[in-house]
């Protein structure tokens, strides 16, 4: 497979450009996605190639923007709708939850709604309570939606391309702290990653660290520290929340007998609780220690740096959780 080193942001842009070249029904719309290349600048150049017709700056009107995307998807287009900050998805929830997610079912299977909604998540930029949330669990909660949450440049590209080709509404979350992250990325036109396939980012025997998005890197760092202490950690990244690759998660825990689950969404009523329950149900007889869940602290993300830092799981938190299990 031919590969090229690129950043996470470049991988997203390349995925989008390839899909737009391949399929003339794909277009992108969002606030400042055009010449500005988004506020994160990750799509610079896309507008030069595809022009106003297919890379479209929109009014600041998230509900309308997503609504139009749903209508367009219903009638033969494959829109990619950009919602700058995941927090702003709140303004478009009706269109996503009551319209996009349900049209196929309510129409008895007549409709397809192949819309891709791309948005961002993650704290750590001192952006305060309305620009830092990780609310992917909201959407994973809704039948009819698929949710992808890539952690590496290669995954971002492969999952993005799959999202565009999928006939269902897909929400794909990019952690804005990862845009500059570099990695090797396959360059074939037809490189895609099927949804519902977890990826083992590091193999190990003593403990399973199940982590999503930027928390994968937190888990990998923790695994390095644990290795020095003689503990071998396996890091598993579900990559898509819906569909979720239960088998890979369960198999890993059956092998290691212990798990820590790390996700940047709120700890309460979220992804980590869901995954823990799945693992308990299927691997109960194999589990040697209570599963530990780490997530964002259940508070609005504070602005002040020391406070914000305290709300996000760190490698040290993961290491401590593992040490408390007294593996050896």
């Amino acid at each position, binding site marked *: 497979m031919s590969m090229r080193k690129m950043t996470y942001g470049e991988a997203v842009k390349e995925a989008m450009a390839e899909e737009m070249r391949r399929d003339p029904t794909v277009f992108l719309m969002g*606030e*400042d996605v*055009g*010449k*500005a290349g988004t*506020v994160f600048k990750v799509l610079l150049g896309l507008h030069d190639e595809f022009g106003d017709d297919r890379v479209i*700056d*929109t*009014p*600041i*009107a*998230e*509900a*309308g923007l997503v609504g139009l995307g749903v209508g367009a998807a219903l009638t033969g287009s494959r829109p990619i709708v950009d919602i700058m900050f995941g*927090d*702003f998805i709140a*303004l478009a929830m009706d269109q996503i939850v009551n319209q996009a997610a349900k049209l196929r079912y309510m129409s008895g299977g007549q409709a397809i709604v192949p819309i891709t909604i791309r948005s961002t998540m993650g704290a750590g*930029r*001192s*952006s*305060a*309570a*309305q*620009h830092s949330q990780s609310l992917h669990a909201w959407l994973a909660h809704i039948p009819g939606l698929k949710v992808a949450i890539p952690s590496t440049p290669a995954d971002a590209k492969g999952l993005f391309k799959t999202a565009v080709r999928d006939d269902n509404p897909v929400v794909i979350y990019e952690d804005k702290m990862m845009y500059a992250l570099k990695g090797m990325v396959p360059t074939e036109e037809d490189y895609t990653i099927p949804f519902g396939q977890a990826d083992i980012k590091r193999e190990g025997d003593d403990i399973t660290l199940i982590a999503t998005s930027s928390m994968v890197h937190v888990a990998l760092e923790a695994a390095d520290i644990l290795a020095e202490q003689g503990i071998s950690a396996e890091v598993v990244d579900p990559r898509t929340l819906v569909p979720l690759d239960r088998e890979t998660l369960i198999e890993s825990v059956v092998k290691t007998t212990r798990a820590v689950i790390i996700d940047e969404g709120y700890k309460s009523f979220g992804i980590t609780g869901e995954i823990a329950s799945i693992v308990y149900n299927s691997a109960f007889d194999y589990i040697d220690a209570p599963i530990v869940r780490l997530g964002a*602290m*259940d*508070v*609005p993300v*504070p*602005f*002040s*740096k*020391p*406070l914000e830092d*305290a*709300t996000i799981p760190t490698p040290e938190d993961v290491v401590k959780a593992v040490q408390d299990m007294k593996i050896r």
Partner: protein
Amino acid sequence: MSLPSEILIKMYRAMLRIRRFEEQIWEVYTGGLMHGLAHLYIGEEAVAVGVCAALRDDDFITSTHRGHGHCVAKGGNLEAMMAEVMGRVTGHCRGKGGSMHIADMSVGILGANGIVGGGFGIATGAALSAQKRGTDQVAVCFFGDGASNQGIFFEVMNFAAIWKLPVIYVCENNHYGEYTPTGNVTAGKSIADRSLPFGIPSTTVDGSDAIAVYEATAKAVERARKGDGATLIECDTYRYRGHHVGDPGEGYRTKEEIESWMAKDPIQQLRTKILDNNIASGAELDAEEREVEKEMENALEAAKAAPYPDVAEVNQHVYA
């Protein structure tokens, strides 16, 4: 020039305070003393100041992501604002809010907002509450040209019209939303026109002219206090700097355009009017400037010396 001279001097001083505050933020940001984003108000001072000078202390405002000017004008404290932007515990919000969320309920600042259009409902609701409580308070909603495309703008105008709510919608049309020219994404001849189908009167004013803004607001306030309902004021204005501190503000705007706006600088304009009408001397205005400078220096020193909040505060204030 029918306005009392105290009001003119007060407005001059308030504009200077905003300008100095924002310049200071720029230095603090480039000096690495603050994290995150800050959206500077330089160039738009006459809007916040003209509006707030026509309000009482017990009136309400809702502000935006570009909110420092509104907060200074409505009576926010420079030291507490600077401390907030720097994430210190002595800030208006104990460091929890930062630049985009400055609030001071004691002077009717119901909060800046990180959501574009986030103030529409709150301001209109504050007006509803004033009506229900039987006070003659009014609420002002500051919002941008970009925000005028959010659907909730139209929802609240309908509420305000059917219930004759004491609310004033103040649009700061600075001709851009981030990097996009307003005309590219905004239908119609003017934003002021948008209230007309609701029966809400509107007016367009030169947002570089603090006196014009004051007069338009005073009229709207009078109407609101009498129980006659809402007004929309569109202020034609411009931000000299980029969308936020990290944006140089060029590329998508021409140098000529920026300079043409700087040539009618709101602070210079008012200064000239004050001098031409012999309301104060140049020396007196210079003294104002020095005082503001001193106030700003003190505010900065105090903010710098202030501690960050204790980490134990992180889960305080989630619930009442």
